[in-house]
């Protein structure tokens, strides 16, 4: 068991589904025609594009002509944001959140330098935005609101339906970065008040290098890449046919399995959470347990540092990620956890497990058995964890007593 890979980092990227590989292979081999060409050989590629577009649209409850293929989630986000802003150049206010993925967060910071007023909405200690604060931020100058559907680190699901409704009321376009949500929770664009929605293939068992942007019919659009007439002039550049086909197949599979995400995957995640909290003292779940993606568990362990935990898990073949400073390449812990006000005593020791429909019970068992030993080992050498032997049991009892009183 310890030799096999236990991959619990599906919010970072996912493995290619075998059916997806099967679907894309012909277009990597014999079917290399350019969909823009006139002969029948290229017609196969064109048909494949059409089919994929319908598959993506079906998963989202959208119309095929509302789907634009891009190279990744980041490109989809940038395309949407610039489309909306350029359509109303006189308006100079942009609203987003402090917990966005860098794809949008960095755009916000950049726009600030370009003379925009940018509101970065805060979150409470569970990572929830406040609709009141949002409503107060909206004004006549607001050109666009961009909010993630679900947070990549905590899995928190934001109230995009309510936010979208408020945007409609004020006539403000609304973009949603749904990279983490698509394929994990059911979406119906026909009913949701959302104008733009970004998704990424490699988060739902398609390969890297493919994304899509939903653009509601009638929403303003300006191409991000100019050039040929591909994607009806909305995204120039020869279509990455194998990747587009793969995204279509992955979306069709996701639609079939969306129920599993919310039953099987959720049950495994809940079990992992329950067992870790029970086995490891001074551990807390980050985020909003009531309103979270079914596959994500963000959990913090006091007195230990995330990178050290990850490397010890790596020795066991377990893949996860951390919001600690040491893993981010910067010296600050995760901007999401800090925005939530997670105490520094916990932020440095945060670990994210993200499951997929391929996660097995055996894998969860293995992690639930292994992680407590890893934490024990690191706590044993941590200077913040050295209660005198005789004092320890008494202290703990008194502590839990005082906690329940408070």
């Amino acid at each position, binding site marked *: 068991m310890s030799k096999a890979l236990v991959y619990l980092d599906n919010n970072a990227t996912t493995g290619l589904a075998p059916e997806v590989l099967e679907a894309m292979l012909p277009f990597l081999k014999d079917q290399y025609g350019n969909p823009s060409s006139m002969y029948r050989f290229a017609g196969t590629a064109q048909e494949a594009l059409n089919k994929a577009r319908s598959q993506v649209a079906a998963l989202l409850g959208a119309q095929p002509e509302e789907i634009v293929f891009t190279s990744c989630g980041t490109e989809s986000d940038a395309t949407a944001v610039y489309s909306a802003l350029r359509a109303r150049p006189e308006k100079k206010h942009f609203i987003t959140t402090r917990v966005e993925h860098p794809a949008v967060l960095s755009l916000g910071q950049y726009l600030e330098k370009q003379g925009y007023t940018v509101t970065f909405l805060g979150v409470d200690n569970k990572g929830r935005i406040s609709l009141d604060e949002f409503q107060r931020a909206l004004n006549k100058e607001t050109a666009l609101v961009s909010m993630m559907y679900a947070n990549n680190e905590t899995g928190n699901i934001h109230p995009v339906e309510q936010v979208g409704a408020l945007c409609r009321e004020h006539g403000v376009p609304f973009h949603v970065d749904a990279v983490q949500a698509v394929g994990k929770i059911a979406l119906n664009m026909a009913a949701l008040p959302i104008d733009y929605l970004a998704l990424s293939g490699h988060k739902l068992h398609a390969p890297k290098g493919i994304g899509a942007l939903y653009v509601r019919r009638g929403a303003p659009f300006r191409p991000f890449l100019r050039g040929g007439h591909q994607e009806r002039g909305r995204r120039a550049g020869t279509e990455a046919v194998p990747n587009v086909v793969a995204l279509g197949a992955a979306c069709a599979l996701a639609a079939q399995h969306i129920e599993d995400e919310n039953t099987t995957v959720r049950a495994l995640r809940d079990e992992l959470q329950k067992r870790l909290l029970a086995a490891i003292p001074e551990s807390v779940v980050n985020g909003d347990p009531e309103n979270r993606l079914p596959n994500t568990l963000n959990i913090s362990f006091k*007195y*230990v*540092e*995330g*990178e*050290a935990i990850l*490397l*010890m898990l790596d*020795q066991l073949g377990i893949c996860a990620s951390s919001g*600690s*400073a*040491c*893993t981010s*390449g*910067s*010296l*600050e*812990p995760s901007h999401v956890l800090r925005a939530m*006000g997670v*105490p*520094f*005593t916990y932020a*440095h020791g945060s670990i994210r497990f993200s499951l997929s429909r391929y996660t097995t019970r055996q894998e969860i068992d293995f992690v639930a058995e292994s992680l407590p030993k890893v934490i024990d080992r690191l706590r*044993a*050498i*941590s*200077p*913040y964890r*050295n209660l005198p032997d005789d004092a320890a049991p*008494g*202290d703990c009892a*008194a*502590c839990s*007593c*005082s*906690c329940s*009183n*408070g």
Partner: protein
Amino acid sequence: MWEYTDAVREHFLNPRNAGEMKDADAVGEVGSLACGDALKLFLKIQDGRIVDASFQTFGCASAIASSSALTEMIKGKSLEEALALTNRDIAEFLGGLPKEKMHCSVMGQEALEAAIRSYRGEPPRPHSHEGRLVCKCFGVTEEQIIKAIRENNLSTVEEVTNYTKAGGGCGDCLEEIKHILEDTLADKAMNGAGGSPLPPGMRDLRAPKTPPAAPLSNIQRMQRVMTVLDELIRPRLQQDGGDIELLDIDGKTVSVALKGMCGSCPSSRLTLEGFVQQTLQEQVEPGIMVREAAS
């Protein structure tokens, strides 16, 4: 993914001399939970020679490996020999550290120095909150930056950040680090590369010895609160069979948990407001508020 050498991996996975030493002759502590790494070094000293060493470390793999390496390197050395070790020696012992992780080796060297100073009864090197603070996010002083530049022949601001963390947070002090770097390099060129101590008076030129009572930065406040808790408040509570734990500091609000007898004591509110908060207000800053964290 960091590229760690085999030696770093080995010392991380199988750390040497890990754990508390109950009968240590000297203890040196650097870092804090807030910064993301901390090292407590224990030494057993006989006839001016380090006969045993152990450590406790909170931090990433390279922090743990640097601590482990340090204890192996100093065992058997005289205090003078040990003090001659630099952070570069620690990094070299491990076959090198990623440049972003060099501050882990600096932490080792600082803990060693702190331990030996306390053993000799010398006052601890000025705490970072007493020197002129350059990086407010990580509490790094001008003195620490100059030392890192001199000992490691640093030549760019980015290197200074990698070795000291200074400038790695909000980035407001990057410009200042650039000036310190330029001054130090110019000074080094004049005085040779011997890493001589700062010429007398040089600090006075740039920073008055007694800076105006500026508002505390978060890191300064954090460090003072921790010191006052450890030195004044906890010993008093422990006399009564209680204890207190610091959970978080958010601005001027200090969150704590009362433990032991204090946790179940009916007058715990009195303890918090009358004793803990008052002591912190007197010793740290008048505006400090203490609240008991509900968990």
